């Protein structure tokens, strides 16, 4: 058991002569942000070649989704990008709504709530990135500040959806039920505590000379390479290309929101760091606008009872409601055959789902376009020539989440 004749990745780790050393960084490592193995060929401290090995978290989510109903598949799909679960669910339900042809009927309140929750989860995901990125460099206090901010967001997720992570609150057709009482008041509290907290975090990290020394001019990625390697999200915008799915292909009413798309041109780890920090502020700007929109009451689920479970209180009173509830829960609805590609701007980049239906009550195929996988692949290129100590900085600045890379 302890001698591995054929390692799982199929490559041999062996001395290559010329004074070079091949080492395996991971898959268990405090700073690889998950189960990543980077097979690095080192000459002294300089990386000559870096081969990331993935698959250590392959969960078969796509195959599981093929065996679950349309309404149930979002539970496993939420577990891909586990730092911002509602983003996955949002993209998936929007794709299915396109196949059903009901995209135009989603109530406005549900769209605003989706925007609010997705942006909250974007901030929560960036909090984890910030905290763990800081810890990798030794800035341990930033971790506590960032995770406390994330706690307030998880409180909101728990209040609305019932669970801190993976609440399965977004449903095909809208939301599971309306935002509870007190939710908007807690959002106001979060908005009030956010700006002082970000000021503290920026004071700790942004101008910190050690952090700047370790991040500036590390892992430089220019715009041409970024596009050739399929990079999206903050890493692409730090390279100078202002591609943001919320602006390019607006969804959920993002065309009604005012926010800036943060772009930098240096393309190094510090630029990616600054883009994400500024993006958090823009997300809070969107949250403030969505919060105002949510003052208006309204339905949160489409009226069509073929897709929307009837309100719980009607089930005991109405036979039709009981039958609809039974049919939706026990055998779900059917989605007309066809295929669709739906993309959103996730915290890591363009998260897309290529959903195929053959008319059944289960998905035929849910192919995920994982932004983290493409963002991580470029490590093969940007790590060459850097020190092994910078590998940690580069992986952190690309911000992969392995539930998404491996699925």
């Amino acid at each position, binding site marked *: 058991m302890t001698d591995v004749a054929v390692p799982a990745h199929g490559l041999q780790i062996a001395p290559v002569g010329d004074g070079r050393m091949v080492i395996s960084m991971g898959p268990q490592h405090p700073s690889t942000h998950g189960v990543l193995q980077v097979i690095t060929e080192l000459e002294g401290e300089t990386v000559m070649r870096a081969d990331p090995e993935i698959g250590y978290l392959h969960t078969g989510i796509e195959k599981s989704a093929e065996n679950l109903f349309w309404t149930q598949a979002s539970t496993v799909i939420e577990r891909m990008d586990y730092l911002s679960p509602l983003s996955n669910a949002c993209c998936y339900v929007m794709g299915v709504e*396109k196949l059903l042809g009901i995209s135009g009927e989603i109530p406005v309140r549900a769209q605003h709530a989706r925007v609010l929750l997705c942006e909250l989860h974007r901030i929560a995901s960036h909090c984890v990135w910030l905290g763990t990125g800081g810890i990798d460099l030794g800035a341990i206090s930033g971790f506590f500040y960032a995770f406390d901010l994330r706690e307030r967001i998880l409180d909101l997720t728990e209040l609305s959806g019932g669970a801190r992570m993976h609440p399965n609150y977004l449903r095909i057709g809208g939301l599971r039920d309306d935002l509870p009482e007190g939710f908007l008041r807690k959002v106001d509290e979060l908005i009030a505590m956010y700006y002082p907290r970000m000021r503290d975090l920026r004071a700790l990290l942004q101008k910190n000379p050690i952090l700047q020394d370790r991040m500036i001019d590390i892992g430089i990625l220019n715009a041409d390479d970024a596009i050739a390697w399929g990079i999206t999200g903050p890493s692409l915008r730090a390279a100078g290309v202002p591609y943001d799915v919320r602006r*390019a292909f607006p969804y959920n009413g993002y065309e009604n929101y005012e926010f800036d798309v943060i772009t930098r041109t240096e393309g190094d780890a510090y630029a990616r760091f600054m883009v994400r920090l500024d993006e958090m502020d823009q997300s809070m700007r969107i949250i403030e606008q969505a919060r105002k929109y949510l003052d208006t009451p309204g339905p949160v689920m489409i009226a069509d009872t073929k897709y929307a479970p009837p309100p719980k209180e009607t089930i005991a009173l109405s036979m039709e409601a009981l039958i609809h509830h039974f049919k939706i829960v026990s055998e779900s609805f059917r989605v007309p055959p066809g295929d669709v590609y739906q993309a959103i701007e996730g915290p890591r980049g363009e998260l897309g789902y290529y959903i195929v239906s053959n008319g059944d009550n289960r998905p035929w195929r849910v192919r995920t376009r994982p932004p983290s996988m493409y963002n991580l692949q470029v490590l093969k290129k940007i790590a060459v020539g850097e020190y092994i100590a910078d590998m940690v900085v580069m992986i952190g600045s690309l911000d992969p989440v392995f539930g998404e890379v491996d699925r």
Partner: protein
Amino acid sequence: MPSSQTPPAGGTALDPTAVRADIGDARVIRVTPADVRATLERLRGEGFTMLIDIGGADYPGREPRFDVVYHLIKLASTSTTLAQIGQPERVRVLCGVPENDPVVPTMSDLWPAADWPEREVYDLFGVTFSGHPDMRRIQMPVEWEGYPLRKDYPLRGPGREKTPRPSFALKSNVAAGTPASGRTAAALQRQIAAARGQAPKDDAQ
């Protein structure tokens, strides 16, 4: 999971990709492995510089059986403002791959982004990409047999396909070693009957 309780409702389309609902999410082009490379090179010349994704799909009732799906987007690296980016065009290239010869030319020399997704399509579907520098499994261990995302590969894996799924409702707490709580349906019926002042039912135990 519903799979043990309700059978699939039965899909109607052997080839869902042929049923083009008017969704407008992308321009769709269907090609064969012989002309997929020329098509993608031509699209790249037209400005579709970013390969967003390469995925696979399995349609066992249809010939060709597999689909390798390329998603591209028109994005110029020289765009520096939102106005220049605009609303990029999306294109989806569906390459039908037959089961008896599942080989497609690689795109990894045109787009370095294609490296890992092609390995993943090979790993999960068995479609090989000729000319790929490193065609080996990426998600499953390298000695794994079978292509998991094919429709004829069992969900729970070939080893556990026939093992019954645990049915928690039928397990007895006492048999499992934890003491019975006494809160059974029969006890509840006795309790209700006692509260109503009636004699307990005969078959209660």
